[in-house]
């Protein structure tokens, strides 16, 4: 068997093993070592002198001293602290009374709360679950359509992995060697565009058919404006300022993403103290969860880098490249094909696996089709919104189903998510047709 053929065996065996459900990081590491031993085999050499062992240590260490990935635990810590700062109910209530004049006020407030909270924490599961307990029953009680209410919470909570400062873009940056700073600048406009489309959609639906989103009785929202501003200043403003200062420090080049994340984490602790939510127990929870989730993401990198360096040494990368080039694709069809594959991978897999393991397969092809890796990254980030909303692994829908009242069916939640999926595709299309949506902000900040 020739080496590139062996690489194909390696890739297909890996995909099969993934489906068996074994922890992926270790599968990648072991397969890298085993196939690597064969690939680097030199007759007569001592077993442990094989190059693959040096490669494994070297790759592991290059993840350990990777200054891009340093931001991952810091942003996670910031997220876990904010999650524990008791800010969510105040935030939702303040937005709800502030937006009371708008049709579908509660759903719009829920969307903005989800988007803001998810952006600050970056942890989708927590946002959907917390909002599923807080806003979902409130909307149902107010007579909102189940599907609309469910879609709003699932789609809103998922925005956290897209809108900067998001961990997903750091991971993409570490995978593709595109600067995280530029990725952040590039993802802001598309992220807000998507969030804006969600809001417009809810308002339009509520205006056309007010039965979907009845207005609350006047006495429940009749709060004087001075009080509304006070409420906003207590909940909305501090969180928005925290996010904007972290993001601003990164975009204006005042701090690296890791430094800004550290400041953000410190700010989150201060926020928790101010809201009287800071306790030893909560700090410990946040610290330990940070360690666990960082280990999950970074060990995946350790495995993946070992696997992929052996894979490309065997010529697997070249084989895929030749295969794709032989398909006579142009830029458009290549983008369509690659995004369709990523969309399909999102059904059974989560974003971390897709970005760390599968996106690197596409990256070497980009120059051939004249696609900028930064632009591609934004498309991928948008696309992966769908991985939380499409069955069978629609994590957001499951989180909501887990805490929703019994009479809300899983299928209802899925149906509620579909229109929002449609808007993700619309945004991707707009980004493709008007690349300026991606390039405008990076150009403003950093020139061409």
């Amino acid at each position, binding site marked *: 068997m020739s080496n590139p053929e062996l690489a194909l065996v390696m890739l297909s065996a890996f995909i099969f093993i993934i489906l068996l459900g074994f922890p992926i*990081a270790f599968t990648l590491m072991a397969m890298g070592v085993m196939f690597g031993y064969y690939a680097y085999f030199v007759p007569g050499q001592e077993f442990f002198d094989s190059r693959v062992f040096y490669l494994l240590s070297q790759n592991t260490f290059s993840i*350990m*001293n990777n200054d891009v990935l340093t931001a991952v635990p810091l942003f996670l810590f910031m997220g876990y602290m904010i999650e524990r700062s008791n800010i969510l109910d105040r935030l939702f209530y303040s937005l709800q009374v502030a937006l009371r004049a708008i049709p579908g006020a509660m759903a719009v407030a829920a969307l903005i709360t989800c988007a803001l909270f998810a952006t600050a924490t970056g942890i989708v599961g927590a946002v959907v*679950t917390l909002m599923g307990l807080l806003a979902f029953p409130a909307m149902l009680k107010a007579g909102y359509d189940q599907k609309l209410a469910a879609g709003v919470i699932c789609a809103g909570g998922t925005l956290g992995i897209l809108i900067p400062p998001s961990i997903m873009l750091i991971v993409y940056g570490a995978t593709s060697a595109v600067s995280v700073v530029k990725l952040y600048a590039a993802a802001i406009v598309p992220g807000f565009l998507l969030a804006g489309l969600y809001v417009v959609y809810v308002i339009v639906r509520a205006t056309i058919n007010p039965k979907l989103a009845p207005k609350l009785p006047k006495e429940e929202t009749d709060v004087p404006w001075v009080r509304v501003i006070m409420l906003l200043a207590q909940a909305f403003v501090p969180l928005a300022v925290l996010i904007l200062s972290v993001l601003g420090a990164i975009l204006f080049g005042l701090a690296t993403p890791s430094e800004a994340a550290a400041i953000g984490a410190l700010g989150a602790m201060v926020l928790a103290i101010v809201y009287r939510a800071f306790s030893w127990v909560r700090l410990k929870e946040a610290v330990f969860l940070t360690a666990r989730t960082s280990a999950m993401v970074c060990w995946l990198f350790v495995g993946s880098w070992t696997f992929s360096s052996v894979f490309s040494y065997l010529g697997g990368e070249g084989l895929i490249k030749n295969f794709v080039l032989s398909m006579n694709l142009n830029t458009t069809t290549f983008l369509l094909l690659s995004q369709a594959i990523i969309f399909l991978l999102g059904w059974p897999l989560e974003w971390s696996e897709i970005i760390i393991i599968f996106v690197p397969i596409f990256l070497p092809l980009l120059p051939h089709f004249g696609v900028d890796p930064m632009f591609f990254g934004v498309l991928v980030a948008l696309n992966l919104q769908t991985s939380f909303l499409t069955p069978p692994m629609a994590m957001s829908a499951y989180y909501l189903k887990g805490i929703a009242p019994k009479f809300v069916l899983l299928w209802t939640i899925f149906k509620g998510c579909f229109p929002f999926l449609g808007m993700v595709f619309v945004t991707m299309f707009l980004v493709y047709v008007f690349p300026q949506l991606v390039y405008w902000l990076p150009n403003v900040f950093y020139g061409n």
Partner: protein
Amino acid sequence: MLQKFLINIDRFSMAVGHAFAWCILILTLGTSYEVFMRYVLNNPTSWAFDMSYILYGGLFIMSGAYALSRNAHVRGDVLFRLLRPRVQATIELVLYFIFFYPGVTALIIAGYGYAHDSFGYREVSVNSPAGVPIWQLKALIPLAGTMLFIQGIAQVIRCILCIQTGRWPRQLHDVEELESVIQHEHEKQAAGEGAQ
């Protein structure tokens, strides 16, 4: 007896993971201090950059076994979760020997050589004149591998127990993600209401 042995392994991985988890707090405060020194006092430190990746690297590599003991490593378990525990355990037992131990053993042995070389000349970072040592960071690689190896033994025994009894044995618990805590409480509540 065996159960106690398994829980003790969990406890060991957890203790090490928890100890290294506190790196995040030092990392947060240390990096904030650097930013403060740079902008407010105009006097950047020479060690902050090296400190940041050393803390981050130690944090995640030494939490690997802890994450394994809490089943926090990501898996593509769409099909896996539908299987009966006994089938799950059989698959997992086989895969531990094919896809866990070879990689982890290689990590221990290769990492040992790698760290040994680095320790031989007391390697320091080239990023700054401060000469921050980094051989200790490399020494964590074989240690982390060893921790995984030990935790792996506990997981393998659990697979065997599960094949015998048809039920997954108990694992040590500590903190849970907020969503699983809430979801769990909700389930209990719903079950309680159903019983009444």
